[in-house]
């Protein structure tokens, strides 16, 4: 009779473990799967603001995506194209202007603490002019999308073929902080290639090879 109880306990346990695993199947990652990785970045850069609200094209900053294998993280000099002038959020500037009019003084230049990090990195002084006394210090972003060393992904081939960035990177324009949307598994790549060959990309007929050496060499 004892063994009978044991059997019941064990099988119940097994059943619930299976149930638990089945329920979590969607969220449990096999090792190496970094889906939903959303690290904190050294600068709280908002894609939602830039790509969403301001509707800046992706390729404005990630300009090497159509010319090189890597999309690249823009050099700080690209930020400075706008942020030489824009130093704080619109709201803050408006508030300061109102305050200044009220207090009848010249509005102060506001510098958002996040942008200050870029200026620091470039070694700029308070007037955002290069200061030889200050060292330039590159910004170490945390890489979100990362493929193993044995996989070669070529951005230019994809951008050239007309694949829009969101296909792989998800609704970046809605993300405050960058997040890895797909699981970046080989199956994800391969199935998209299959689909592209079958259905084309943006109405255009393409041939997306699924030969191994397309990505592995």
């Amino acid at each position, binding site marked *: 009779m004892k*063994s*009978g109880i*044991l*059997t019941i306990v064990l099988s119940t346990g097994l059943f619930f473990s299976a149930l638990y695993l089945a329920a979590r199947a969607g969220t449990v990652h096999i090792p190496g799967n970094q889906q939903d990785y959303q690290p904190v970045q050294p600068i709280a850069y908002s894609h939602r603001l830039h790509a969403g609200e301001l509707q800046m094209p992706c390729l404005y900053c990630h300009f090497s995506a159509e010319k090189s294998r890597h999309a690249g993280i823009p050099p700080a000099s690209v930020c400075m194209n706008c942020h030489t002038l824009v130093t704080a959020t619109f709201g803050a500037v408006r508030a300061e202007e109102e305050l200044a009019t009220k207090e009848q003084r010249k509005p102060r230049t506001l510098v958002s603490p996040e942008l200050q990090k870029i200026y620091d990195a470039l070694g700029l002084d308070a007037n955002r002019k290069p200061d030889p006394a200050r060292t330039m210090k590159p910004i170490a972003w945390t890489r979100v999308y990362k493929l193993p060393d044995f996989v070669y992904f070529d951005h230019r081939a994809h951008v050239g073929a007309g694949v829009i960035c969101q296909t792989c990177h998800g609704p970046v324009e809605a993300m405050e902080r960058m997040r890895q949307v797909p699981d970046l598994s080989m199956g994800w790549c*391969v199935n998209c290639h299959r689909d592209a060959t079958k259905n084309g990309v943006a109405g255009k007929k393409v041939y997306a090879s*699924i030969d191994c050496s397309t990505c592995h060499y």
Partner: protein
Amino acid sequence: MSGRVMVGIFQNEDDILSVTSEVRKEGYTILDIYAPYAVHGLDKAIGLQPSRLPWVCFLLGLIGATSKLGFEYWASASDWPLNVGGKPWNSLPAFVPITFEVMVLFAGISTVIAFFIVSRLYPGRRATSVIPGVTDDRFALVLEETDAAFEPSDVRRLLERYGAIEVIERTGESLP
């Protein structure tokens, strides 16, 4: 199984064979016979139907083989056809060895599992031998005392005539 049973214990293969035929001729219901080894001819004497386990074996082997062959074809020629050494997508001869192995594996394992199920053998099951000696050198014939026609003393005599070294009566609860 709630009725009473009569157990005749024998020491000899020949005795159990002859007593079985005799008891069956007399019309008694043989509940079971316990033996230390598979006594040949006893199945006939006892009048057991041939087991259907060969069918299980055959069917599961067939299922194993066809599903494996189908899988191999699907995986190699349909799901992701890869050019392996210029061989055709459907390399049927090359699929045979694994198909065969899987067939044997399915057939073998499933037959044994089916055997365990129908014989109700499982780990931890309490052994319910009539006497411990049946796994050593004793043969036990278990008769069910079915109805009024069953006269224990007659049966006892019958059994003893065929060389039973001991005859015991029991309630069936302690039996499988």
